[in-house]
């Protein structure tokens, strides 16, 4: 059965993360977890990506970057916030420079809390995002038909 979700390409962006979550994201690519078996590729190019994976909170400096990357991704697309900082700001929530979680600037579909989020929970979030991709594909098709 051919589905859009059979080939989710992933774009990883580090907002203001302490790199804890980033290391866990990269751990998913290692032989132990091997997300490529689901067809997931870490692309690094927003124009090729289906899943936008963000770690760390949003501040004034990366706000425009996150918005631009999101706007460059072609539809259908899904945003996954990885780690508690990306979800709502985490321990940095009250810092003067932190605006909060990723959902302050772009719509987030899946939240993966944790400090740092474990590879298992990241993969769980990504698999949920994959299921969402198919739904979004259908709605994009409807919009195009209308």
């Amino acid at each position, binding site marked *: 059965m*051919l*589905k*859009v979700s*059979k*080939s*989710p*390409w992933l774009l990883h962006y580090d907002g203001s993360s302490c790199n804890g979550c980033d290391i866990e994201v990269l751990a998913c*690519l290692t*032989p132990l977890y*091997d997300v*490529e*078996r*689901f*067809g997931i*590729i*870490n*692309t*690094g*190019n927003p*124009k*090729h990506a*289906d899943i936008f994976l963000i770690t760390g909170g949003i501040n004034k400096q990366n706000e425009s970057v996150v918005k631009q990357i999101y706007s*460059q991704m*072609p*539809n*259908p697309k899904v945003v996954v916030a990885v780690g508690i900082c990306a979800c709502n700001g985490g321990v940095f929530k009250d810092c003067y420079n932190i605006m909060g979680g990723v959902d302050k600037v772009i719509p987030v579909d899946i939240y993966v809390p944790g400090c740092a989020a474990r590879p298992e929970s990241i993969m769980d979030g990504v698999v949920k995002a994959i299921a969402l991709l198919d739904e979004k*594909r259908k709605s*994009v098709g409807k919009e195009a038909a209308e």
Partner: protein
Amino acid sequence: MNISVVSLLLYLILGPFAGGLLAGIDRKITARMQGRKGPSVLQPFYDLYKLFNKQSVVVNDLQDFLVAGFLVFIIFTGCLFFSGGDLLLVFFALTLAGIFFVMSACSASSPYGSMASQRELMQMMAYEPMVLLVAIGFYIVTGSFAVKDIIHFSNIPAVAYMPGIYLGFLWVLVIKFRKSPFDLSTTHHAHQEMVKGLTTELSGNILALVEVSHWYENVFLLGVVGLFFATSDWWSAIVVIVTVAISYFLEILVDNVFPRVKWDFMLKSTWIVTLVAGVINLMVISLIKLR
């Protein structure tokens, strides 16, 4: 029906399927070499389906036209080859297709695209002499540039006369397949530099067309590998399939063993290999032919 027409049609219809399957097998073997499970063998087809279903962000119309030109001329190259056409014309058409691809990356005012197109030109500069030597080698051995005459030349495969040229061609194939030590302009690996090189500005169905072109191109290039082993005997088809599979496996092995090099090392080493393996081999066979 004529055998050349049959093989042409087979290439046109089965080419992308064979190319996609090869890419899938490549990814599976690569994963196993790295101790991973790896994606399904059909993964490249899933990717293609996905790309056709994505929104296509068009940077400019010229780019789409140039990518289409790339696809058309790659198919033209393969068709010429598999219908038994002139080897020189085949390689010139291949170069033209390559130029179309470079131009498509150049047409978008993206720094990554322009950098990658410069690197791609450098790669073409590196592999082009060797590719020409392949055509000249076949001509000196068999007395013809036509693929169908080369196959029907004798019971001894051409590789017996030109092992050096064969090795040189395998070296150059690393560049053509965009395999690791020489994948400067764009790569199929996750560890890319310059975002995604030549395909940075492409998305959706246009990127899918590039994938299909690469599959056609890979099947054609493996066809050239097969030409080294092909003879007029029926069983040579089995020899060709086995040797092509071994050659492709070697390319995957090289891909996984060696890290990416800088462009000057690629250019120097490829030209040295061309000179040592290619030119000396060519001189030896010309001397034998003179006697």
